[in-house]
C-alpha cells in the first residue's frame, strides 16, 4: 500500500465514478525534525558593489598593543614640505570572480579536542579560488566554553563545479574575517575526501589565524585616509637619550627626568616617530622598571626596541575610572608638574585605543582636572585599569584616494595611500585608513586599522623640538 495526498476528486458525468488525483506522500516529511534537517543554505547578502566595504585588513603582521589592533606599514617623509605620510598594505580584491561559490550550511559543529581553537563564536567562509574568491556565505560556529583545544567542522558543502583553489576564511565576526590559507598549504584546516568535482564537502578547522588578508570585497573602490590631531597620546612625550641594551631588556635614558623609582612600572611606552628612517616601526612595550631618568623595557621584536633620538610617549594607566571619568595621577610628573590644564580638554574627544573598551565610540570631554577627564554622558563599555586612552581633536581631515582596481592578478601588497600631513607644526596625528566604496562611504574609522605618528616641525626638518606634553 502506498499513501497519497488527495489533490482533487471530481465526479464523472454520471456521478457513479470519480476521477481521483493525488501525489505520493510520506509521513516523515511532516516531522518537525525533518524540516529542521538539513539546515538551510544562505543567500548571498554582501557584495554587488553597493554595500559599504568591510573594514580594511592590511594583511601585515603589524599589530598594536599585543595584537589587539591591526596596524599598517607607515612611512613619514619629512624631506618634503609638507611631510608626506604613506601607508602600505594589501589591497582588497574587488573584481567579482566568475567562479561559482559552494552552498554551505548555516551552522558548523564543534569538538572540544584535537585543535587549538578557543571558545567563542566564529564565522567561516569557503573560497572557490584562494584569496581571489568568491567566497560562500558565512557559516556560524559557536565553540562552547570549557577547553582551548577545540575544532570546528563544516559539513554538507555542495559544489557546483570544480574549484580552482579551495581555501577558507574565518574570524570572530563578519568584519574581521581573515584568510586561513589554501587547503593545499595551510595546517589550519583540512578537507574531506573529494566529491565528483574533486572538491572537499567537509572542512575541519584546527586553528584560526587572527591576522591576515581580508575577504575579497567587490564593494571596495578606494581608500579613505583620516588624520586627526592627537592632543594627548599619553601622560608625557620625550626624545630618547642614551640606550643601553642588555640580554633581554634595554635601558632607555631621558635627560632631565626626575621620576620616583618604578613610577612607570607596568606602563606602556610607545614609539611615535623615529627620525632618519622613513618606515616607522610600531613599538608598544610595557615598562619593567624605572629609576630617576631611565626606563627598563623588554627588547621586543626590535633589537634594541628603541634607539637614541626616538620620540616616544608614555601611555596613561587608567587609575581613575567611573561611569563617566577616566584619568591617571601620573599626568602630573616631572615632565609636567602641573598636569593637564583644568578644563582645557573640554570639547575634545577621549578615545580608548587598547584594553577594556577599546575602540568603542569616542566620547566628548565635558571637563577635566589636572589628572582626570570627565565625559558627557557615560561610557559604552566601562573602562578599567587596562584601558589605554588618547585625547583627540574633535575634527578630522579625510581624503579619498584614487580608485583602485585589483583583480588579484598581481601582487596585492604595496603602497595604498600617500597624503600630505595635515600639519606643518610639531604635532602628533592619528592616521586611520578605511576601505571605501564608490560613494566614499566606509565603516566607521574606529573599526579600521590605525597608526599614531609624530610629525616634526617642518620649517627646519633636522632641527625640530617637541613639546613635553603629547
Amino acid at each position, binding site marked *: 500500500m502506498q499513501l497519497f495526498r488527495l489533490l482533487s476528486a471530481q465526479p464523472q458525468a454520471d*456521478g457513479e465514478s470519480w*476521477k481521483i488525483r493525488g501525489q*505520493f506522500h510520506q509521513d516523515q516529511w511532516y516531522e*518537525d525534525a525533518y524540516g529542521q534537517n538539513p539546515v538551510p543554505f*544562505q543567500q548571498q547578502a554582501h557584495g554587488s558593489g553597493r554595500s559599504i566595504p568591510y573594514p580594511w585588513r592590511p594583511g601585515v603582521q603589524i599589530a598594536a598593543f599585543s595584537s589587539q589592533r591591526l596596524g599598517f606599514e607607515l612611512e613619514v617623509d619629512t624631506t618634503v614640505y609638507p611631510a608626506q605620510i604613506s601607508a602600505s598594505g594589501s589591497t582588497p580584491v574587488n573584481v567579482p570572480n566568475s567562479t561559482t561559490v559552494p552552498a554551505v550550511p548555516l*551552522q558548523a559543529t564543534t569538538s572540544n579536542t584535537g585543535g587549538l581553537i578557543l571558545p567563542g563564536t566564529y564565522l567561516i567562509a569557503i573560497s572557490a579560488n584562494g584569496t581571489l574568491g568568491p567566497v560562500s556565505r558565512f557559516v556560524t560556529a559557536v565553540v562552547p566554553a570549557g577547553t582551548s583545544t577545540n575544532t570546528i567542522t563544516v559539513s*554538507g558543502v*555542495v559544489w557546483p563545479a570544480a574549484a580552482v583553489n579551495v581555501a577558507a576564511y574565518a574570524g570572530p565576526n563578519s568584519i574581521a574575517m581573515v584568510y586561513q590559507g589554501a587547503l593545499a598549504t595551510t595546517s589550519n584546516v583540512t578537507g574531506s575526501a573529494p566529491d565528483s568535482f574533486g572538491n572537499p564537502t567537509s572542512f575541519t578547522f584546527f586553528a584560526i589565524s587572527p591576522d591576515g588578508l581580508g575577504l575579497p570585497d567587490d564593494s571596495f573602490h578606494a581608500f579613505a585616509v583620516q588624520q586627526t590631531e592627537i592632543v594627548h597620546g599619553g601622560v608625557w612625550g620625550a626624545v630618547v637619550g642614551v640606550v643601553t641594551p642588555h640580554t633581554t631588556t634595554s635601558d632607555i635614558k631621558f635627560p632631565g627626568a626626575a621620576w620616583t623609582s618604578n613610577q612607570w612600572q607596568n606602563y606602556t611606552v610607545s614609539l611615535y616617530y623615529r627620525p632618519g628612517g622613513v618606515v616607522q616601526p610600531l613599538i608598544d612595550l610595557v615598562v619593567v622598571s624605572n629609576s630617576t631618568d631611565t626606563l627598563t623595557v623588554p627588547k621586543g621584536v626590535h633589537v634594541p626596541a628603541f634607539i637614541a633620538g626616538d620620540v616616544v610617549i608614555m601611555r596613561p594607566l587608567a587609575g581613575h575610572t567611573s561611569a563617566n571619568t577616566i584619568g591617571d595621577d601620573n599626568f602630573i610628573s616631572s615632565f609636567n608638574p602641573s598636569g593637564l590644564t583644568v578644563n582645557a580638554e573640554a570639547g575634545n574627544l577621549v578615545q580608548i585605543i587598547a584594553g577594556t573598551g577599546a575602540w568603542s565610540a569616542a566620547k566628548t570631554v565635558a571637563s577635566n582636572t589636572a589628572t582626570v577627564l570627565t565625559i558627557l554622558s557615560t561610557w559604552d563599555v566601562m573602562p578599567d585599569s587596562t584601558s589605554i586612552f588618547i585625547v583627540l581633536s574633535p575634527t578630522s581631515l579625510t581624503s579619498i584616494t584614487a580608485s583602485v582596481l585589483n583583480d588579484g592578478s598581481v601582487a596585492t601588497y604595496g603602497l595604498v595611500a600617500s597624503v600630505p600631513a595635515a600639519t606643518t607644526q610639531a604635532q602628533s596625528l592619528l592616521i586611520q585608513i578605511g576601505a571605501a566604496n564608490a560613494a566614499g562611504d566606509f565603516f566607521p574609522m574606529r573599526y579600521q586599522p590605525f597608526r599614531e605618528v609624530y610629525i616634526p616641525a617642518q620649517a627646519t626638518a633636522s632641527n625640530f623640538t617637541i613639546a613635553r606634553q603629547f
Partner: protein
Amino acid sequence: MAFDDLIASFGPFSHSDFDAPSWFAAAAWCDVPISYLDANNVTQSHARFRSSFALDGANRKTLAQAVLELRNCAGIILSKNPANGKLQCSIKRGLADQQPAPITGSNYNTAVASVKADGTAGVGYLAYLFDGAGSIKNNTLQIDGRSINDTPNRISFRFQNEDNVWSDDSLSQIDPNAYVSSGNQVIDVPFAVAGIPNFDQGARRANVELAEALYGNLRNDAGGTELPEFDTTVKAAHLASMVGAICGIKYDQLSF
C-alpha cells in the same frame, strides 16, 4: 487568525462562513511550541507556525495571491465542511496527526502505522483505500511526474526575521540529491510565501516543499514526486470536500 482575518476582511466571506472548530484546531496545532537551534546554535523554543506580514499600497497583490502565500507559510489546507458547507481549515501533517480517528465515508477503518510530528510512533486512518483489484477502474491508473517547472531543487524566498529585529532576510534551501541528479543545475521555482517570521519555520516549510516536489515517488529518491491519477468504480463523494486528505492505494501489478 491572521489568515481568518485576511479572508474575512477582503474576501467574499464573513466569520459566520467559517467552520470555527476546524480553524481553532488548526490554530492550536500551529501554537504548539517546538524546539529549534537559533543562529548561535542554542536550543530555543517557539510556536510551530506563525505568520507576520503586512499588506500595503506599495506592494499590492490580489486576494488570491495573498491567500496562497499565507497558506504556504504554514502548509494550510482550505476545504468545505461537507456537513455544514462552511469553510474549514487544516494543516498538512502526517497521517497520525492529520487523521487520528476513523473517517466517515472511508472504506478502510483499520489503523495504519504512522509517525507524529514530534517523531513518536502513532496510528492514523485513511480517508479511503483504493485498490486496483476493485475500486480503481481497469486501465485508468496512470502515474505522472511533476513538470520541470514544478520540480525545483532550490527554494528561495525573503522574509522579515523576528530573530534579527525584523530585518530583511532571505533563505535559500537546496536539495543536494536533486541538484546532483539534475546534472548540477540549480532549478529555482518561485515559492509564493508570505509571513515567514524566522529561519526555522522557513527551513521547515522549504524542506517540506522540496520533499513534496522531489521525494514522493516509488523509488524514494529525489527524482521527482509522482502523481497517481485514476477513475474509481465507487462513489467517493465524501472525498470531494477532503482535498489534502491522505488516502491509500494498492496496485499489485505495480508492486504496491
